[in-house]
């Protein structure tokens, strides 16, 4: 089963927004630590009970005065099969899809839905190609290994525990093997990408891509090969002149606690961010995003986006056909990440601020000093963040770094499991 995912933006029928919101809010939300507690609402898409959805979210957002229903999902199916699954699991379609533009009972759900699926400009997936089943299996094996090592599992079979302890000593070999395999894969993928037709760019696009990549890379000297790139391409790090924080009320006051107050106590969280740009920036923005996309599809190692190991998936989408305000474009970012909002944003601002500035530097309302001004940048994001009405994560308890470890050590852990029989 291939792993895929989508971002869909479905226009909500005029006047039906509140109704739709009420329906969605009754489904439970992993960010708010809500559980529907066994009670199933009447109108429902009962997608939780399966083994192939990694993440899913529903949110309501307004782009240039048009209300839309945003749905994002990551799953291990072909998109058609997934949409068929959604259709089957919808208990009262009139009360959900019926509130959106253009849906009627008679029409083909998949075809209707596909109209609204938008193609992201850049996509990063922590473990591309790894199915949820495989993740769960690796995690289960890892937990089993802990049990065996602690001797609690089979106190009478000391020999097994001892053997397991010896096996664990060679963890490093498996880590090395994992590293080498991934390095080879990255190289292979990158070469493949460079020669693929997808990269059939005009000279102008090529230049924007190159410049975008350089801007993103400029503060990333801590990654050795980017340092080499920066030296070779004479790409100096941004000069750190002291700057004044522009985080100031009343801008501040309005927004401190928009979104969820509970965003620090959840295992997985989501960020839905809608920012606007002057249309003149579009080409440049696409260049930057494309360079990120290229990196994510090619060089990126499993579980690490430029050394940041809290992101499960992230997609940047430039919204098509938003004609409300001429001269303005919209960028939608949807991500699923581990842990607290505060840490997540701080980490980004501190460690890849050149990347954030390359993307959002010329967004409307971005702080003049950019992402280095963490308080102001956080406020900028908070004001543009859209709370999810429904959020689902299959990784209850499994962070990216833990998942990576479980996947890396899966072969050893299988051996250990084999010993026990």
């Amino acid at each position, binding site marked *: 089963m291939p792993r895929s995912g989508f971002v869909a933006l479905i226009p909500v029928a005029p006047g039906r927004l509140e109704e739709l919101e009420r329906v969605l809010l009754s489904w439970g939300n992993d960010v708010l630590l809500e559980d529907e507690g066994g009670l199933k609402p009447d109108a429902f898409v009962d997608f939780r009970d399966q083994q192939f959805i990694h993440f899913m979210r529903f949110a309501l957002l307004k782009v240039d005065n048009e209300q839309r229903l945003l749905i994002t999902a990551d799953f291990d199916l072909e998109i058609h099969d997934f949409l068929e699954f959604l259709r089957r699991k919808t208990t009262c379609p009139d009360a959900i899809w019926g509130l959106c533009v253009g849906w009627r009972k008679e029409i083909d759900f998949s075809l209707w839905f596909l109209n609204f699926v938008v193609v992201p400009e850049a996509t990063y997936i922590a473990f591309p190609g790894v199915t949820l089943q495989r993740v769960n299996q690796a995690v289960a094996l890892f937990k089993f290994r802990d049990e065996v090592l*602690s001797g609690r599992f089979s106190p009478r079979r000391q020999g097994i525990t001892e053997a397991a302890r010896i096996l664990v000593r060679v963890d490093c070999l498996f880590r090395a093997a994992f590293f080498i395999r991934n390095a080879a894969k990255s190289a292979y993928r990158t070469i493949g990408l460079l020669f693929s037709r997808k990269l059939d760019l005009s000279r102008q696009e090529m230049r924007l891509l190159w410049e975008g990549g350089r801007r993103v890379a400029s503060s990333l000297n801590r990654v050795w090969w980017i340092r080499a790139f920066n030296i070779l391409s004479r790409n100096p790090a941004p000069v750190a002149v002291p700057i004044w924080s522009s985080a100031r009320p009343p801008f501040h*006051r309005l927004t401190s606690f928009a979104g969820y*107050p509970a965003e620090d106590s959840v295992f997985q969280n989501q960020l839905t961010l809608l920012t606007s740009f002057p249309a003149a920036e579009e080409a440049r923005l696409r260049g930057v995003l494309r360079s990120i996309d290229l990196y994510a599809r090619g060089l990126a190692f499993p579980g690490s986006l430029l050394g*940041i190991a809290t992101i499960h998936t992230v997609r940047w989408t430039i919204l098509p056909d938003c004609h409300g305000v001429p001269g303005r474009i919209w960028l939608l970012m949807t991500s699923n990440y581990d842990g607290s909002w505060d840490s997540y944003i701080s980490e980004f601002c501190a460690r890849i601020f050149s990347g954030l500035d390359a993307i959002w530097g010329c967004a409307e309302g971005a702080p003049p000093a950019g992402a280095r001004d963490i308080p102001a940048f956080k406020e900028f994001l908070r004001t543009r963040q859209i709370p999810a009405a429904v959020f689902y994560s299959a990784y209850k308890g499994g962070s990216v770094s833990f998942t990576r470890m479980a996947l890396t050590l899966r072969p050893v852990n299988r051996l250990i499991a084999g010993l026990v029989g």
Partner: protein
Amino acid sequence: MKDLLSAEDTNDIQSWIYSGYPHLPKSTYAFLRIDDQIRARQFLKGIPWQISSATKSRNRQAQSHQVLNVAFTAMGLLALGIDDETVEKFPIEFQEGMNAPHRGAFLGDISPGGKPDHTVRDYAASAVHLLFACHFISASVRDSWISKFQRDSSAGGLSLVGLELGELADSGKEHFGFKDGISNPEIHGFKGAGSATGEFILGYPNEQGCMPVSPLLSPESDPHDLLPPAMCDNRNMRDLGRNGTYLVFRKLAQDVSAFWNFIADDCRRRLGRAEPADLVWLASKLVGRWPNGVSLVEAPHFDAYSEIMQERLKAGSLNDFTYGQTDTSGHRCPFAAHVARMNPRDRIQGLSESEALGTTARHRLLRRGRRYGPELFDLKILDTPESWNRLQQLFQSRPEAQDTTRSDRGLFFIAFCANIREQFEFVQRAWGNNPHFNSAKGSQDPLIGTNSSITPGRSGIPIPDRDGGITTGLVPQAVSFRGGGYFFLPSIAAFRWICHGK
């Protein structure tokens, strides 16, 4: 970017930022309300002469028997007639204060539904305008200061909302029995090494090369030329914050018998016995240091006479360690221990050691806390195994009998930071209360976590070792919040400006 502070600036900084006054064991915190603006202003105009500066503190000869520091709440600035426009230039967390309902919920002081989890507030913090914090060499000096201050302040149009007495024990211990106040960041501007000055003092660049939020005023607002010009690209403005900082004050009651009884119960639950060595071991795993202050990383086993312990204690070098190199997997100092949560140093999961150091550098606190109330038992018995038996006698039977003065003791948690949101609130929330921080496996900070029913699916504290380790039972809420606030500790020049008004 990282320069030493000039003599002029050091002269302008309140000395509390420079020193925690280890030579002045007694302290008092007077919380005041301004009743009469005119008289209060007159009274306060005489104060700057009494406030000692960092220069004085640095110059040991000039150390006196009492040292005064003064800080304001946002309400206090307004009550003194500072205009809204100026007060609104302060960061929102300072304006709203620690007790605003959503901030309380954010900090875990109130459950998210709005139901106060701690109904007891020792004083209504919204009415507090000023904090006079004074440190003394002895209780008698303190007493005479207090009686004089009470007279003067009421004549000066101020009324006393609360008066708290703090102390620094000879042993340096807080009430659970652990040596406190060991680890504190150095400020680059003072020492030429350590954290960027702007992490703790306004008006200087912080670790990100960014100037913390500070109220900048137009020159017209400062007709007497009291304030220094703002740095960098704002030189035409005056900086009200420069050389000042924000002060976080929290009165935290400690239920000592609840803490030690939990330890004893948990040992009994797991081992079927509660030997003194087991008790000290478990309590130290929760704190992250041995009772005498030696880190678990440096001395994984307690042996009071081991070389390493003797050497560390003698040299007083209790803080020269990191976790990353020696203790990647938390077998010595658990990830979930209080000190490892509050300052994970170079050990944060998913980050390399140097990245983790970079991260922690942005979330540090300059702590100046003092404890209050009498010791429940002689805490020094924890330092030598010979006297541990006493501990066992104390906590063998059920708790209620042992502590009649319940909750009458605790810690005044006091910390300075240039950005309350990114430092104090972040540490409390994203590190302390976060059940998923750094392998916490559903647990919260064993000392300061909300540790109540607020967090669904909460679990005990994981203590890993080579063989998988243990998980404690659910930790009781032995520390509870009794009130507090966010204050602005101005520079001496800013203090003068505040008293003069526009």
